[in-house]
């Protein structure tokens, strides 16, 4: 299994723990990645507010580079990148005028984008290409007794994902259960974390973060598992503001890939576990006991 890999700016910056854990975990499962040469920012949500056509050109340059690389599929782990790359793809397929604009813009740099290249999320690849059975076989240290709130956030499943349900996604739930963890029922699993509002309009943003933590705590979660660098940042880095306003509700927020790494028995230092402001200290038992069925809450 080989994929072109689009890290995006966050995975090289504030969300580097996501890349640090994703790469060894996928390697461990025999998935080969090749980082896209000279990739550029996907445009995220901010560029769409400035100029939609230019935002699509930004995304399309990456898609063109990925097609040129010959890998046939592009892996985009960041929720915003995943959404924007897929959005550009849809616009190219649905709007001939948009496609013409993008074609002409890319041509000035000698690039071409067909509009066909699949853009995949790691959850999609893990469940549908690798498979839960193969993942289960790699578990050396089951996450027995760990209660996890599965938090998908918005942009992974809405509006373009086809690999999971838009209202009640379950791919991460099933993955975490395969690792031996207990997945708590978390109805806010796709509620918005506030995005950049935590910084721009804290009154609204910090409250949204608080609500997510409060609900996870109420459900008895030891940690929140995320699939998005901005969600992780908001839930983790604003802990002081949340605590000052709402009291001690903040739980550690980890990437699902970090939990996979722990279950596979990979060393902590390979998983970026030192990157979180609220440290995740729980560790699975050493013994490689045969995995029991996931306990129910």
């Amino acid at each position: 299994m080989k994929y072109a890999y689009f890290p995006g700016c966050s995975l090289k910056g504030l969300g580097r723990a996501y890349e640090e854990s994703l790469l060894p975990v996928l390697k461990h499962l025999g998935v080969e990645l090749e980082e896209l040469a000279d990739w550029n920012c996907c445009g995220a949500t901010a560029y769409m507010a400035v100029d939609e056509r230019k935002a699509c050109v930004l995304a399309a340059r990456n898609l063109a580079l990925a097609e040129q690389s010959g890998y046939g599929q592009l892996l985009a782990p960041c929720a915003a990148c995943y959404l924007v790359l897929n959005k550009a793809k849809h616009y190219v397929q649905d709007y001939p005028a948009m496609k013409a604009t993008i074609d002409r813009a890319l041509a000035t740099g000698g690039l071409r984008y067909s509009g066909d290249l699949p853009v995949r999320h790691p959850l999609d690849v893990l469940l549908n290409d690798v498979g839960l059975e193969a993942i289960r076989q790699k578990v050396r240290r089951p996450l027995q007794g760990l209660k996890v709130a599965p938090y998908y956030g918005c942009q992974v499943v809405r509006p373009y994902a086809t690999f999971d349900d838009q209202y009640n996604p379950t791919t991460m739930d099933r993955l975490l259960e395969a690792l031996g963890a207990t997945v708590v029922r978390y109805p806010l699993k796709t509620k918005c974390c506030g995005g950049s509002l935590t910084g721009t309009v804290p009154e609204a943003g910090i409250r949204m973060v608080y609500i997510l933590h409060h609900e996870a705590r109420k459900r008895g979660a030891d940690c929140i598992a995320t699939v998005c660098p901005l969600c992780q940042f908001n839930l983790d880095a604003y802990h002081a503001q949340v605590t000052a306003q709402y009291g001690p509700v903040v739980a550690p927020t980890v990437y699902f890939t970090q939990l996979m790494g722990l279950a596979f028995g990979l060393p902590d230092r390979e998983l970026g576990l030192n990157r979180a402001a609220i440290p995740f200290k729980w560790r699975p038992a050493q013994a490689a006991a045969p995995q029991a069925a996931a306990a129910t809450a």
Partner: protein
Amino acid sequence: MMEIERTIKYDADRVKGFGREVMSVPGCEQLEDCIQCGTCSGVCPLSIYMNYTPRQVMALTRGDFKNEVLRSVTIWLCASCYACAVECPRAIRITDIMYELKQRAIQEGIYPKRFPIPVLARKFSEMVRKNGRITEMLLVMKLFLATNPWAAMGNWRMGLDLLRTGRLSLASEKIEHREDLARMLDAVDAEKGAGA
């Protein structure tokens, strides 16, 4: 001081043709089918902070009330979570309409001067054009400097956390083919100039 404003909209407040114009943009066509059910306002996690709910913005846009929607706080509070777009029974891509309205507000310069959200969008696009990538902490610093330098001080605790966890990187991330990228973005502007 108490501001007294007329809350009822009159026909004279409309900018005729605005709704049609918005509905001609890719992704915004379905607005025509809005049944004003309010599902968007119900699922929106931010509607409690908005001066017009998403449902009202849909009605105002379709009804040509350009000044009201472009000056609203609503369009800037939309965090692009797409909950409304997924839930809308008429398949209206409300998030994309919000993007279109934001673009128009930026083009016309209609937003409060130090309001951080549009400033962030602008600083973001400038950095992408210049470097091809975003260095997040640099972007955050630029945002604070342009809006409220003192607010940065309030976040000292976060700065320490980021430093301690090795995430406070201020070295500019850059791509190699920056000129190519700038040319591609300019090509879009050139088309607009040509009226395409």
